[in-house]
């Protein structure tokens, strides 16, 4: 459980740092790197970074959007289309980020397995 928490926090911290100079896919790098440095087991391999980035993106989006009364989020939630719900848009944003991070972490795990067995 300790490792999970460490990985979770490390993923967020690294993702924030990388986001300062890399595009959106910096979260994939972050999850991959923490996956290699702080290895996880079983479903946690995917779900820890998934939840970490979901939280990061959703929370960050919420902070930006709530400060502006969700004006644009409401419009984008019509465009996509999500019935005009900004909360749903925030959730989707989190899930998309989490999914990309989780998959990158799974790839990291496989890399680890292969390199260790050799």
């Amino acid at each position, binding site marked *: 459980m300790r490792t999970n928490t460490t990985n979770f926090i490390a993923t967020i911290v690294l993702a924030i740092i990388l986001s300062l100079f890399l595009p959106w896919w910096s979260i994939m790098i972050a999850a991959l790197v923490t996956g290699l440095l702080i290895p996880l087991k079983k479903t946690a391999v995917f779900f820890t970074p998934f939840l970490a980035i979901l939280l990061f993106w959703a929370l960050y989006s919420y902070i930006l959007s709530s400060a502006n009364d969700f004006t644009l989020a409401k419009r984008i939630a019509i*465009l996509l289309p999500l019935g005009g719900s900004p909360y749903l848009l925030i959730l989707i944003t989190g899930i998309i980020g989490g999914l990309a991070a989780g998959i990158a972490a799974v790839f990291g795990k496989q890399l680890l397995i292969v390199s260790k067995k050799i």
Partner: protein
Amino acid sequence: MKYLKLLFSFALALGIFFTLNNKFGSIPPLGKFLNPYSGVWQNEADESISGEISIPGLKDKVTVHYDAQLIPHIFAQNDLDLYRAQGYITAKHRLWQMEFQTYAAAGRLSEILGENALTYDRQERRRGMVYGAEQAIKKMSEDTESMGFTEAYVDGVNSYINQLKSKDFPVEYKLLNYKPEAWSTKKNALLLMYMTKMLAGGDEDIENTNALRLFGKERFDLLFPDFFDVTEPVIPKETDWSFIDVPQTPVPFSKPVLDSIATTIDKPDPNYGSNNWAVSGEKSYSENAILANDPHLGLNLPSIWFVMQLHTPNHNVFGATLPGALAIIIGFNEYISWGQTNATRDVVDWYKIEFNEDGTKYRYNNAWKDVTYRIEEIKIKGKATFKDSIRYTHHGPVVYDKNFKSDREKAGYAMKWIGHVGGNTQRTFLNLNRSKNYTDYLQALTHYVAPAQNFIFASTEGDIALWVQGKLPNKWEGQGKFIMDGSQPKNDWQSYIPQAFNAHTKNPERGFVSSANQHPVDEAYPFYVFNDGFETYRNRVINSYFSSKDKFNIQDFKDLHNNNFNLKASELMPYMLENMDTSELTLEEKVIFDQAKAWKYNNDIHEVGPSIWRQWYGKLYNMVWDEFDVEGTALDAPSTYQTIYLLKNKGEDAFMDILETPKTETAKDLFLLAFKEAAAHLMEIKSEEGNYRWVNYKGTYAGHLLQGLPAFSRFDIPIGGGRNIVNATSENWGPSWRMIVEMTSPPTALGIYPGGQSGNPGSKYYDNFIDDWAAGKYHQLNFLQSDVATDVVISTQTLTPTKE
């Protein structure tokens, strides 16, 4: 196994990256688009309007005060700094729009929208939009001062673009997955071409030719008269033209070319139009002249106008700007106010071109003349570049040939258009911004080429005036009504009407000037003016309003802007109600009939009368002109005015007959048939939507520039009015900038437009004017007299020169 897993997970990771980093159809690249640190969430903010920004090239400090409407008041120490700041500030609020409009003007939409836009792009290239912009640049370059200002504006826009990070791109770039390119003087010229096309890009020559061929000259003249039985021209009838000493071009013996053409290029919406009026001191409650303008254009978001104040130690001006063009376009300074309506003159003509065997020469004056080729390269997103080779004659581009909308091997149709002549439109506005009196205004107008406008004027000195200004060909009687033979020199435009002989009026006896896209002049004007779809209703309502009493105040001006009287309906509907056979109406139809009878001809939002009229007349119009519905032939049916005239005066005419039925119908039969169809449709609306009140029926909306993207548009705007009504708000066009200026010293002004100052759909300033606009309200325009912030200033931003 583990390698397989590795490979599989790698493929998955790559797959998700690819999926989220690319655009699929209309779905934006979701990773790029939704991530909170560079995606749309970064656009979830109002613009920053405080602090200090350093801008390269500025000579001095520029102060920008914003008021509560987000109108920037720019205070610069010199002209170059002023226009640099104008460029910067405009881009800051409207970058995506200003760029998108120039892409649209240049026929470059395929670059951002893909293959679907190719037909549109080809059409714009063939229309010679880029060619026209290049001609304009040549003319602009001859005037080094105005070119210098333009370059400062261009640099200002680029300074803004250059400091943008991808997270700051307007949301539309993120949605469509592209980025802004550098601004240029050519883009300024393209924006002006965009306006020229919108306001002077229309004609019916080809449609008229088809109609002439199908119906003959006598019938054609009945349907499309040069003058209607009533005329209330822009320039009052009693004007004395004896000062004009240049004759109209004499009529040569020329026969129109009676070819048949199936389809034509897109024309601007014929409903675009505008009102303006001004009363003299004697007719004003305060003895100050008062001026009003409301250009009727497409209701879009972001709005076509961006309002600002521009101040230097030498001049101080306020009003509406066009993002992408210098200076104020409609507005006022300390001494004068001015505005425009479209003058709707026929400045597009078509020539049939006969080519030689290999299509490289065309016949002209009994000889073969070389064509010049212009290769238009249209880049297409995700596809190979499309090359269109367009032949140019001395008339202009051959728009229609075997490669485009025509199947004739050795013939084509060339376009002669004032838009290709080139002009320094910006000079006119730069000068108007600085004008102090009538003489200055007149001097400013001499530079103006196209689109021809009715320039209205009022000054603190008490003068009012109106000039129909544009570079207008001196045509022979009937020239350009139909397709002409391009091989005959006599069919060319022979000369232009000397600028001083353009129709105008200054301080007319009646004490007011006005225009509403009607006939510029009556028959007495010594030059040929073709009836190019002139308006015949708004002008009469406006003029009778100003003849109705002695003095007018600001409230009267507001009332007239918001006047919903439907003169058109009042001229036909009573006749229909009286002459229709009502014995066969069902009970439900009778209810609608009674509603129609009770209507007082005001298109107010809660009325049902306007909806009944629209349905009834719409069906009737189609029944009358079923003769114009000919497969594979481009035709335009006659005007509303002439249709109503014929229905009331020639009800037995053969045109009234519906070709499909064995019976020979008259106007009175059509009234009933159309009424029954209309009633059925209205009842359908009622059962689906609860009622057919005008506001509901009309459903006015302001659509986002990008194909009306619903998420960024405003629907069901509660406003009355309609087509041919002074409050000309229809479904998607209407008064795009309502301005009233009283010529006190300094002037006091009101203004509003259906939109907001910000181009960002995430800003509360994106559409915040719409509700007030719909309710007929105005905002006080804060004409600051110095750069000292008053209590109307909510925030101030300082632009400073970048230190070397």
